[in-house]
């Protein structure tokens, strides 16, 4: 009998296992193959809390969510439609997080039912009981049993079996699957590669023999060349495309993999990843390198950003170009190291004691992670300032295809000028209007000067003269005004006026837009806009806001709820962009935020939008 074929424009798949069982690899290959077939793809890692959590533990659920579509996929979606789970505990974790669609199809390893350990059997029983209250379609799969026909330790094989199963369900191109396996395991032996392919085939076979359905998410034909990577790789690649070749860092989750990537890539392309003794030294080395002629950069996350606070102020004061990438994670303090949050915006903007104007950019997609590095380098150099690039854990580990960038030699930093400095120019010869000045680089004859974090005059001489201090402050601030004049107002998606405008920044763009589209489909007059520059702000915001009855931000950071005890409209602590926009536009911008250590789901945002309408919002 021919299996039934379900046609869908998009579908969301999860693979979850104990840590170490390789579900992530399975998900990655499935995602890459889908991208290569021409599907839109968005991949998010499901990361356990510990390096080696105990087996069969909800807190240890490890894996991947892969959302594929006919068109571009811009976010991780709402709930998973298909799940492969290696035990019922990790499945329960996802269930309890409401990560699964009501009618999800679940492929569940069932070896636990007859496990020798009584406790395990009891857990299985209780687990299935809990799950039975939902309306999932659970399909039991004897993965262990089948894998053991090929490998000794099924923990090392199930992931490939699962991959085969999924590839059969979604009728993936098996040649591409095999090619991808060969690529992924390129550093392993032939034997390993062959065994993995064998396991995949077992998965395919089992599906063919047992499953009465297939799912079709047809790809879009396109001859635009695409690349697929995660946000940290895109940051690294963007830096190289911008000609940056000195990166100093100290390991910190979820930023570290930028350095892993670059340690490899720089080896080929020329460049150094300097793992310094701490974050302070890392940013100090980057500033030294920039002073010596580079535009150097450093990559970090919350706690590391905190440590760089003082040096960032020095870079601002000495007008040394510097790019700081902050891959935001859950905070405050050590917080949730592997999870996403967007709560470093105000620290990035205001962290430095004293007035330290700087530029803040937030890429919204993995493609923008790439391009933002090129923009950041250029601004840092032209404006002799610090540019902060705020990404987050969602972008860092998410994988998405995007049009292959056409590399342009003009993106690259030029070799530092080593010709003599024109007579009688000074190292901070601020243009009286723009505050811009020429950068002197060691090696340039006649350019000798001493950079200093003390108040200084145009010749970089330490000066405690009142007017000199005021002039320096003014000139450093002025550069931001100049930059802001070159920016364009953000685009409004949807009608240019209406009842509600949703404003976002960073990685939430796709989810917000999907939610807004849904709301519009339901007849709500909602539009959205997404900010790329957070400092200086893009122009026109107040005017745009004025066309809507209400404005709200959607963010992944904390805000108080108005109906909570003691919280009043007056003392309510608001989300970070919301706060900035209120000061900037004087519009009564509201916010809807969630700080659940995971990307936002379109359906949750949709709920937030609806509430704004039904309750008249929280104005």
């Amino acid at each position, binding site marked *: 009998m021919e299996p039934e074929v379900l046609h869908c424009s998009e579908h969301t798949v999860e693979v979850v296992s104990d840590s170490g069982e390789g579900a992530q690899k399975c998900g990655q290959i499935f995602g890459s193959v889908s991208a290569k077939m021409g599907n839109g793809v968005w991949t998010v890692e499901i990361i356990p809390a510990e390096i080696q959590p105990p087996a069969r533990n909800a807190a240890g659920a490890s894996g991947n969510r892969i959302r594929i579509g006919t068109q571009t996929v811009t976010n991780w979606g709402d709930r998973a439609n298909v799940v492969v789970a290696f035990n019922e505990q990790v499945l329960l974790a996802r269930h309890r997080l409401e990560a699964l669609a009501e009618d999800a199809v679940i492929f569940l390893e069932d070896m636990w039912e007859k496990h020798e350990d009584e406790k395990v059997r009891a857990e299985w029983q209780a687990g299935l009981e809990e799950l039975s209250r939902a309306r999932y379609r659970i399909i039991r799969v004897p993965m262990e049993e089948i894998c053991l026909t090929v490998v000794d330790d099924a923990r090392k094989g199930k992931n490939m079996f699962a991959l085969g199963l999924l590839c059969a369900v979604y009728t993936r191109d098996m040649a591409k699957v095999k090619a991808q396996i060969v690529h992924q395991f390129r550093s392993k032996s032939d034997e390993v590669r062959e065994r993995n392919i064998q396991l995949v085939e077992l998965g395919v076979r089992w599906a063919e023999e047992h499953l009465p359905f297939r799912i079709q998410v047809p790809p879009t034909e396109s001859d635009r060349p695409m690349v697929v990577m995660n946000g940290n790789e895109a940051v690294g*690649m963007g830096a190289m495309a911008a000609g940056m070749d000195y990166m100093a860092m100290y390991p910190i989750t979820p930023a570290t993999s930028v350095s892993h990537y670059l340690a490899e890539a720089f080896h080929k392309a020329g460049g150094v990843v300097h793992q310094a003794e701490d974050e302070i030294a890392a*940013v100090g080395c980057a500033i030294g*390198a920039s002073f010596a002629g580079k535009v150097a950069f450093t990559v970090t996350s919350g706690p590391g950003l905190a440590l760089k606070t003082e040096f960032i102020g*020095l870079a601002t004061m000495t007008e040394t170009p510097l790019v700081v990438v902050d891959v935001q994670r859950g905070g405050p303090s050590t917080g949730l190291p592997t999870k996403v949050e967007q709560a470093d915006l105000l620290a990035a903007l205001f962290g430095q004691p004293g007035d330290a104007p700087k530029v803040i950019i937030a890429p919204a997609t993995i493609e923008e992670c790439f391009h933002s590095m090129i923009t950041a380098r250029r601004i840092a150099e032209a404006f002799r300032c610090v540019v902060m690039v705020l990404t987050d854990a969602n972008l860092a580990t998410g994988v998405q295809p995007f049009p292959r960038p056409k*590399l342009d*030699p003009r993106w690259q930093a030029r070799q530092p000028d080593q010709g003599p400095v024109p007579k009688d120019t000074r190292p901070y010869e601020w243009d009286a209007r723009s505050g811009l000045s020429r950068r002197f680089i060691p090696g340039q004859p006649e350019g000798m000067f001493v950079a200093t974090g003390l108040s200084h005059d145009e010749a970089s*001489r330490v000066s405690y003269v009142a007017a000199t201090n005021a002039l320096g402050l003014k000139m450093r601030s002025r550069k931001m005004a100049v930059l802001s004049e070159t920016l364009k107002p953000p685009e409004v998606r949807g009608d240019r006026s209406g009842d509600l405008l949703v404003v976002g920044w960073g990685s939430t763009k796709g989810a917000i837009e999907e939610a807004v589209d849904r709301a519009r489909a339901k007849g709500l007059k909602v539009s959205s806009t997404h900010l790329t520059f957070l400092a200086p702000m893009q122009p026109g915001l107040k005017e745009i806001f004025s066309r809507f009855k209400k404005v709200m931000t959607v963010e992944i950071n904390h805000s108080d709820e108005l109906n909570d005890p003691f919280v009043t409209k007056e003392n309510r602590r608001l989300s970070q962009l919301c706060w900035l926009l209120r000061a900037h536009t004087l519009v009564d911008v509201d916010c809807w935020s969630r700080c659940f250590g995971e990307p936002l789901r379109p359906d949750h945002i949709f709920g937030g939008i609806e509430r704004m309408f039904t309750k008249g919002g929280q104005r």
Partner: protein
Amino acid sequence: MSGSQFSLLDGDVCGDERHLTIEDYSSAVPRWCPGCGDHSALGAMQRLLESEQLKREKTVFCSGIGCSSRFPHYLKTYGFHGLHGRALPVATGIKMTRPDLNVFAIMGDGDCCSIGLGHWLHAVRYNVDMVAMLLDNNIYGLTKNQTSPTTPQGHKSNTQQQGSYLPALNPLSATLGITNCSFVAQTSDWTPAHLFQTLKAAFHHKGFSFVRVLQRCPHFTAGIYQDAVRHPDNVELLTHSAGICEPEAEGLYKNHISHDPSDLHEARRLAEGGNGKFRLGLFFRDESRPRYNETRALPKYTAEEKIEILNAELDRYAV
């Protein structure tokens, strides 16, 4: 440190061509107290620049914050007067990316041994080719008289008014305890010729050269080095053909200890002191230690070559 053999970057044709004098290397008038040992250190450094005829535009002095850290302002070279305790990371970033530059780091004892201790000892380990000079007046000068790690036990300051609680940290021993250490010397501000020779040896050493200068601060620690200044007997000079040879000091100070600077264990023993005497000279040198800046030097590609490499890289991620 000898930077001349590197020439990563082009375009330095119109640098200093003529013979440069001490004046050519001098900038603003120093603002240290009269009698401050920093004056002497500055003088010795200017002599070094002059005697080596270092290109001014190819020379960078980095410092932290403190009286001593004003140093770069008084030299007509490039300079980076950065953050308290953080001269070395900046200097490291400079040297790693610009091996053609001569890099010096100037630090005070609070700067180097208190807040900067981590960077200092890591820099010893990295062994990046530069000269690091510690101007050690055993006190916080700029902030007006607080205890530093090198303050002698019992010495009263504004923060430890009953006298410093702990014995002074020995910067030589600390440095010598770090694996990959490659050059450790001690000299003093009141032996300018020896100071000069020490800086010269440090400059010619390939690797991270740590020079501690016993520096008088008449303002806050007058008297701390008086025994050594007044009574040459209280000084012991390390001498050796492979060490620092300076006839003036050798004449003045009769106590000589012949010490082979390749002997780490003996260097540690000598650094410890113990008989209340001040020892000047080269404690340790080993040019065979790996230098982080060299193992990590940047290759040089044109923008076009880079793009080619990057395109190959993008291919790996192509859909």
